């Protein structure tokens, strides 16, 4: 049985841990608010972008001059997966959920005899995927040094992806990230970005009211400028959602940890008090029986 001193030490150490988890929870809460604001501020842009893209695709009407980024290469042999995760751990199942979704996807593709390439954004996803698929990972984008996520970060990734596409490095590109639903629920999501999912064209349509646009320069030229930008926007949105989701997950994970530490302190204190009482009783008995023997 643990001695009183051991118990005291245990309690002290659990208390210290509790303080840390509590501080982390509060930090996560503050960061979550900021991340959420950033995600919200970015929403108008991606929404408008979607609407503009829908208009212009309608105008072109799937004509022959649509750029390859939109129509794809017509094959689906080589898949590129962009797996976005957090840079840090201690956020519950957040990272492993995304990684699991990606891994299932990879397994399915490999079983179908497709070639898979991976770009990891964030350290944690890289750590997890490296175990099984180290040979497939092309590159790892490190955002640890980045304090506030800017569009430039997303743009840099998008540029790499587009460059790779133009070199014929892959046929289909899918983005893995965690959709921020609420503080307690983040949904790992796979989204195909190249070729651009056809769904975006179908959702809009009523927006322009069938207005006939004039284009300056030609629609094809605008589109070839717009599509790469749209990819950057999609990645940016994924990164922002991820940042918000990470903080949400971290907040609830740390909240749990704080509560567990509290429970543990209670249990340990009870054991400690019982044991102390037992010892006092024992000492009293010894004194009394000693006095009686006289």
């Amino acid at each position, binding site marked *: 049985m643990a001695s009183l001193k051991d118990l005291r030490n245990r309690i002290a150490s659990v208390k210290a841990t509790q303080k840390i988890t509590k501080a982390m929870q509060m930090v996560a809460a503050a960061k979550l608010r900021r991340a959420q604001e*950033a995600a919200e*501020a*970015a929403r*108008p*842009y*991606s929404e*408008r*972008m979607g*609407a*503009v893209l829908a*208009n*212009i695709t309608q105008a072109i009407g799937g004509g022959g001059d649509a750029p390859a980024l939109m129509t794809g290469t017509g094959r689906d042999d080589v898949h590129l997966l962009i797996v976005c995760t957090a840079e840090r751990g201690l956020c519950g199942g957040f990272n492993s959920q995304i990684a699991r979704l990606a891994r299932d996807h990879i397994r399915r593709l490999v079983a179908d005899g497709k070639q898979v390439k991976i770009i990891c954004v964030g350290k944690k996803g890289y750590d997890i995927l490296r175990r099984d698929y180290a040979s497939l990972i092309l590159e790892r984008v490190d955002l640890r040094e980045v304090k506030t996520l*800017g*569009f430039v970060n*997303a743009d840099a990734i998008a540029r790499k992806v587009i460059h790779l596409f133009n070199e014929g490095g892959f046929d289909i590109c899918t983005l893995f990230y965690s959709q921020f639903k609420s503080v307690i629920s983040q949904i790992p999501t796979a989204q195909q970005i190249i070729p651009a999912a056809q769904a975006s064209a179908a959702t809009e349509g009523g927006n*322009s009211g069938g*207005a*006939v*646009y*004039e*284009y*300056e*320069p030609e*629609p094809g*030229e*605008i589109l070839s*400028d*717009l599509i790469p*930008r749209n990819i*950057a*926007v999609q990645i*940016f949105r994924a990164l922002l959602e991820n940042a918000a989701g990470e903080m949400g997950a971290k907040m609830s994970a740390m909240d749990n940890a704080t509560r567990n530490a509290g429970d543990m302190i209670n249990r340990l204190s009870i054991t400690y008090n019982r044991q102390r009482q037992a010892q006092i009783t024992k000492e009293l008995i010894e004194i009394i029986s000693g006095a009686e023997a006289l």
Partner: protein
Amino acid sequence: MAEAFKFELVSPERLLVSEQVESVVIPGAEGEMTVMAQHAPVMTTIKPGVVTVKAASGKEDRYVVFGGFADILPSGCTLLAESAVHVNDIDRADLARRIQDAKEDAADAKDDVARSRAEQFLAQLTTLEGALLPA
């Protein structure tokens, strides 16, 4: 007084302007254009330059944008800028960095098309710098 319409200036990070305006001057890729209410639907790309917004209240604001798109409808105008800042907040160092980047791009360009595009971009940036920062 001219009729007002809705103008929105959006950058990927945030929504900068969303208000009723009288006219907007947009640095279109093929020349500057002034947009007023009931403009014919136009979609255009934007070169780096200054957007002048004349609000319905008569107040005039100027924003520096670095490339993007404008989606113009009779009912309103949306400007999707790659990056946009108010003219008062422009950062000399940032502009200098962009010019430096553009110079490198022009130097690294692999083929003629890319080079001429990069050089054009560089020229636009330099003009912008000249217009904004009187030596």
